[in-house]
């Protein structure tokens, strides 16, 4: 392993060691900060419940990510292709994006019930904007020369979009997807806070009511790992796209 790659791993190990020994050295009560080994022990002891909660949230987040980012991409294309729509919609887009997700969650539960659908919608809502904004940025950010070039050869607008703009926007779109990947689990978990009987959000809430700190920390850790694995998944897909597609024509 190269030194560059080994450093983050070593840093992680150091953090875990600090986490493990700070409560012991400073005699911190368990309900304030349990030891790392206690957190892991709590997860292992309840592994079946943990598995169910994790898989529910992962499913909601994944479906939400697929829906939200697909819609975000399509909407981004429509907005980028029409100056009128862009001018009319942009202020509202910023306004809607500024609504705190926690304020929206109860409304979505009222509309769609406390089942999986409302969680998927919340996850999709959070995934939608980063992809939309980055798609618009990617599609509108290009040197003028390409527009002239495509026009000279009589290319249609559709050809320019498919054979140039979208390919050129890929680095921006992937940036949006990576952001969305981390937001998807946040959306699902926040929705589970508001109304659910399963999932990581529900488990965090229950653990906090019971002052079960090791379990609470365990689920917080899992929530972070879930976001990280979605991010890794998108990065993996990006790695499989040919290297030269990842650059585009920077302006």
């Amino acid at each position, binding site marked *: 392993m190269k030194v560059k790659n080994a450093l983050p791993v070593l840093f992680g190990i150091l953090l875990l060691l600090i986490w493990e020994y700070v409560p012991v050295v400073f005699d911190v009560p368990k309900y304030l900060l349990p030891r790392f080994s206690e957190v892991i022990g709590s997860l292992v002891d309840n592994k079946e419940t943990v598995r169910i909660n994790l898989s529910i949230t992962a499913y909601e987040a994944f479906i939400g990510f697929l829906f939200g980012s697909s819609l975000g991409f399509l909407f981004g294309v429509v907005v980028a292709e029409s100056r009128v729509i862009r001018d009319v919609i942009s202020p509202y887009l910023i306004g809607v994006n500024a609504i705190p997700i926690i304020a929206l969650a109860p409304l979505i539960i009222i509309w769609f019930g406390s089942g999986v659908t409302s969680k998927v919608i919340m996850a999709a809502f959070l995934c939608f904007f980063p992809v939309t904004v980055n798609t618009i940025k990617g599609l509108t950010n290009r040197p003028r*020369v*390409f527009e002239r070039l495509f026009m*000279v050869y009589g*290319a249609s607008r559709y*050809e320019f979009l498919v054979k140039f703009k979208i390919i050129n926007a890929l680095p921006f779109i992937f940036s949006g997807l990576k952001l969305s990947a981390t937001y998807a689990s946040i959306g699902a978990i926040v929705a589970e806070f508001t109304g659910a009987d399963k999932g990581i959000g529900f488990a965090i809430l229950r653990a906090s009511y019971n002052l079960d700190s090791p379990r609470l920390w365990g689920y917080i850790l899992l929530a972070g790992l879930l976001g990280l694995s979605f991010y890794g998944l998108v990065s993996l897909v990006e790695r499989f796209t040919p290297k030269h597609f990842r650059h585009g024509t920077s302006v």
Partner: protein
Amino acid sequence: MSVVVNQVIKAYAEIDRPIFDGFTTTVFKGEILAILGPSGSGKTTLLNLIAGIISPDRGSISINGISTSQLQKQKKIAYAFQEDGLLPWKTAEQNIEWPLTIGSKTPTLGNPQEIIELMGLRGAEKQLPNELSGGMRQRVNLGRALITYPEVLLLDEPFGALDAFTRLRLNFDVSRILRESSLTTILVTHDIEEAVLLGDRVMVFSAPPVRITKEIIIKTRLEDRNQFWLESDNFRDIVKQLREKFLIQDHEG
């Protein structure tokens, strides 16, 4: 094919004076017209009008009596820009043959291998643009313009971003290619020596609204314009005349 620009008026909302106000000129079949002029004097606008990228507010542009839009569909107009506009995800060869895959659904003739040979790109055809030098990129840019066997070639400062040595070498290569073809060519450049080296006729534009302030026909045959001619009194005299015109124009503002 001869290009006829007839009484063209073209204005932009953001500029108070029209760029062209009844501008008329003709570029004859097989002629290489070099256009010089200060920045913002409508040189690129003229090329964009001829290419059909923008339309005149009034007046007409025709090529052998045919409208530019019709020729555009037949890919008979080629355009090479200063920013080479190479697609970064395509190899040199794929960039060259790219015009054959775009636009009109009717198959367009074109032989990429012939162009690779002509432009001296053998050995570099599988390389991506970011692996090529500035000079090689411009060779691909020109090769792409020539692939459809165009009748009219528009060159908008294609060598503007190159170093002096690469630029001179490309000038000689382009001169050879144009000599061997019967292309009607319009070259826009800031470089007086380049205009004299490549042009059959050199035209100087004023600031907008555009007028032709000087026109010189270069009588030396293209095949005789070698490095020795660049040192000749004839070449220096033409360059001097054009430079003086530029300086006077600049002084008059």
